[in-house]
């Protein structure tokens, strides 16, 4: 609610500024556009090459290879491509070889107008060959890793798909590991990623929409969703928000996330992401929309509900009872990671009567001689932990190990025996830190909120903790992701099947109410066969019926 107000205010201010900005610059921009359109393709190969090089700033990695072909080598042509962006065998076998061999023993040579068409349709062997007449299009083709074939005397050029560059192969994702379940993860290649999803959902309804975002980077962004299952309104909203983007570069899906999320000032993310095709496929099947961005293995999915952070891929691969247990543990862990330091501070500075006497003596002994108040002590420990964690992530692996050993020794033992912090505090922070990793996509919100919660706890005790908790709940309940309330799964009984507990798959027959529209049924409810050889009996029945009829 508060954030909504802020956002509206900001939006108004920026739009106001943009209007002023545009009115000053509009004349300038128009001339620029015209100037680009001016460069047109010529008949002369030499001219065309010069212009093309000009557009591409005569970059050093631009390869221009002049060739002559035809029965008497009467045609001169040039192939233009960026070194390293193309696949050399395709170039040789698909373009060069056919060109060289073509015309051998031919009597009649085609005239210049037909030449390009003949080359396109009869000679060049590649998956896609398109004829373009604008130099800018030819340049764009080059930038995408395609090869441009220009022939002297022809008004136009061929853009031939020869894309091929070094890429990482499909490996197990480092951020989401599973004990049971598929181990493949997305790569940096967009096409690989979309194919990984399509291989999971072999259905014609799986629709893919492609957009180019980023003025300079021209990054391809794909929306993938199930037509007839995803809510068309949400699809429209996502398309609208992405099309509204006016940015220079998109280097990672995080860029997109930041521009399209609903609550930019909230500690809670309203756009979820995953590195695993099976997770994204499952979300698409629930009616969500996946946003695949070229150049990153992290695929965004919207709308996001709060409960999504507590669901993992493995929840659906192990048996439901154990999955439910894990679910509950994850909720408790998140609660611990946000509130444990706050509660510890509150108990230590206000509610001594709530601590069992024996434990109180232990606390008192540990507190004896420590120099700082418990709040400052907690801050120091959390700060130290965050430093160590960040160091562990950033440092090269061999050094990282050394850091963790030093960190563990300093934090765990030396600090306590030197009397800088008490041992119970170390235990509290340790469990807080470990619990935070149980809910990976809320780790960031957890580490921010635990500091926020400590302040009311230090000022008001447990009353403050309760107050903070209430505030957090109010904020969470006020959040929305693409028009779907953040707490949607808790608000109706049917969607509760996949919240605190994970119902058996055969009982989850309907898609989540808030997200999907249209085809809501996933399957029919049935209880797995209890009698042995039930299927045999079934077949017999069928056979009998068949015989009778």
């Amino acid at each position, binding site marked *: 609610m508060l954030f909504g107000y802020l956002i509206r205010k900001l939006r108004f201010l920026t739009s106001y500024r943009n209007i002023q900005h545009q009115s000053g610059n509009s004349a300038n921009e128009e001339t620029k556009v015209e100037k680009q359109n001016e460069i047109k393709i010529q008949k002369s190969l030499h001219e065309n090459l010069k212009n093309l090089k000009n557009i591409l700033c005569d970059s050093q990695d631009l390869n221009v290879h002049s060739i002559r072909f035809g029965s008497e080598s009467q045609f001169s042509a040039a192939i233009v491509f960026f070194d390293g962006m193309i696949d050399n065998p395709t170039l040789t076998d698909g373009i060069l070889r056919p060109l060289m061999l073509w015309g051998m023993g031919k009597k009649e040579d085609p005239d210049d107008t037909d030449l390009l068409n003949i080359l396109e349709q009869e000679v060049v062997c590649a998956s896609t060959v398109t004829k373009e007449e604008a130099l800018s299009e030819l340049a764009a083709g080059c930038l995408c890793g395609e090869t441009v074939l220009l022939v002297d005397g022809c008004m136009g050029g061929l853009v031939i798909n020869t894309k091929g560059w070094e890429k990482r192969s499909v490996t197990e994702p480092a951020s989401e590991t599973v004990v049971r379940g598929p181990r493949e993860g997305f790569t940096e290649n967009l096409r690989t990623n979309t194919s990984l999803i399509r291989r999971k959902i072999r259905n014609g309804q799986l629709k893919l929409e492609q957009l180019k975002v980023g003025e300079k980077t021209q990054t391809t962004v794909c929306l993938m969703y199930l037509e007839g299952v995803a809510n068309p309104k949400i699809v429209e909203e996502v398309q609208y928000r992405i099309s509204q983007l006016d940015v220079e570069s998109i280097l990672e899906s995080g860029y997109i996330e930041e521009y399209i999320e609903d609550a930019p000032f909230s500690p809670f993310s309203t756009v979820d992401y995953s590195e695993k095709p099976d997770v994204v496929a499952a979300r698409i099947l629930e009616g969500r929309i996946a946003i695949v961005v070229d150049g990153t293995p992290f695929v965004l999915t919207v709308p996001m509900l709060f409960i999504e952070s507590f669901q993992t891929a493995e929840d659906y691969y192990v048996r439901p009872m154990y999955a439910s247990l894990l679910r509950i543990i994850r909720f408790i862990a998140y609660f611990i990671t946000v509130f444990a330091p706050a509660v510890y501070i509150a108990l230590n500075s*206000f509610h001594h009567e709530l601590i069992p006497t024996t434990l109180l*003596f*232990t606390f*008192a*002994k540990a507190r004896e001689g420590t120099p700082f108040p*418990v709040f400052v002590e907690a801050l120091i420990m959390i700060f130290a932990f965050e430093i160590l964690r960040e160091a562990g992530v950033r440092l090269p692996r061999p050094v990282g190990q050394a850091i963790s050993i030093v960190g563990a020794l300093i934090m765990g033992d030396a600090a306590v025996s030197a009397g800088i912090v008490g041992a119970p505090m170390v235990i509290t922070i340790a469990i807080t830190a470990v619990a935070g990793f149980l809910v990976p996509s809320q780790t960031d919100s957890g580490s921010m909120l635990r500091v926020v919660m400590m302040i009311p706890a230090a000022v008001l005790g447990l009353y*403050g903790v309760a107050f903070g908790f209430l505030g957090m709940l109010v904020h969470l309940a006020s959040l929305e992701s693409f028009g779907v309330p953040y707490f949607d799964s808790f608000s109706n009984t049917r969607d509760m099947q996949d919240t605190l507990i994970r119902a058996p798959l055969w009982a989850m027959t309907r898609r989540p109410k808030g997200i999907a529209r249209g085809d809501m049924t996933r399957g029919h409810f049935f209880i797995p066969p209890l009698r042995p050889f039930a299927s045999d009996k079934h077949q017999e029945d069928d056979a009998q019926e068949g015989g009778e009829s």
Partner: protein
Amino acid sequence: MITKGKRIVALLLIFMMLPGLLSGCWDSREIDKLFIVTGIAIDATDDPDQVDVTMQIGKERKGEAGLGEAQTGGSSTIVLNTVNDTIMGAIREFNRNSNRKLLLQHNPIRLFGIEVAEHGVKKHIDLFLRDQQARLEVPVAIVEGRAADVLTGTLDQDPLSGMFVAGLLEDLSKVSVELQVRMLDFVSRLLQETVAPMMPIIAVVGEEDKKEIKTVGMGIFKGDKLVGRLDNDQSLGYIWAMGDVSQFNVKVQEGIDKAILHVSKLKTKREVTISDDGVVKVKLSMEGGASIAEMEGFGNMTPQNLIPHLKDLAQEEMKQTVTEAFQISQGLNADMLAISATLEQRHPKKWEKIKDRWDEIYPTIELTVDANLKILGTGQIIQSLEMEEAMK
């Protein structure tokens, strides 16, 4: 009309003010700025208007090394002692003279010196009822001699003697709820004018460096003054009469033959009748299951006739103990079995009539005790080793 902007600002203000307005408890105190009180003892002084207050502060519990350090020498308690005209005054004095504040919530025991108990405890318990920090569930006890001795002495059993006494009484309460008297129980009996409050008595025994704490019985109050006592055996009579005892032992003796019977789940029904001319009769019927815990002698008996015999002996023993305890209370004219309370509940009209004469009636009450034990088992063996010869 309030605009939306104003409403949000107002909401924000309210949210920011709420913690300050609703709480006001800025009494944050770190644990290292507290003295954890593990016992309070109240003793009499020569001046009847003054009170001698002793508090035991626990520093650490034995065996909880905490940080893996070697146990430091020195005492694990601090004992504060002062003479003041009120208990609150004493607490204020303790707080004034130290950099720490007393934490009373965890105080597990309140002790009264026998002299204070004899003079009356009423004026010393007001604070414990009034103060928020002081809990009504805390057990109370009388100490033979000076109560402070329990807290000052270094005990072999547990350096934190206050915690130890509390634990001791807690264990006793598992035998019978009547053996542990909490402040609440004491005061509620005190408020029923005709009922005599009870309080366990403990004593410090042993030499200077080998002190031990023992329970020695129950003190019987008349009003708020200690008037008499039951020793440990007689106390059994009291708890049997009150009923609801989870387990205890009865010792029976016949010449040189001895046996201990373990009785569990004793239930006592009481029947109080009052005739029109004000004669009160009380009938107690006890029922419970027993098993043989230990046996010595009875060489001339067979197992078949031994069990009924033991049962008769135990029943007789129980009857006698209860009667004896009751006679002591009649001698003190202190209604420790709360018979007056039963009368008030069951015969409210008749009670109104005899209420004023209760002190005259109580010594004349006729008590009949009926005990009915069931022998449930003989333990792992049936006959004693001495009996074997008789079998042959």
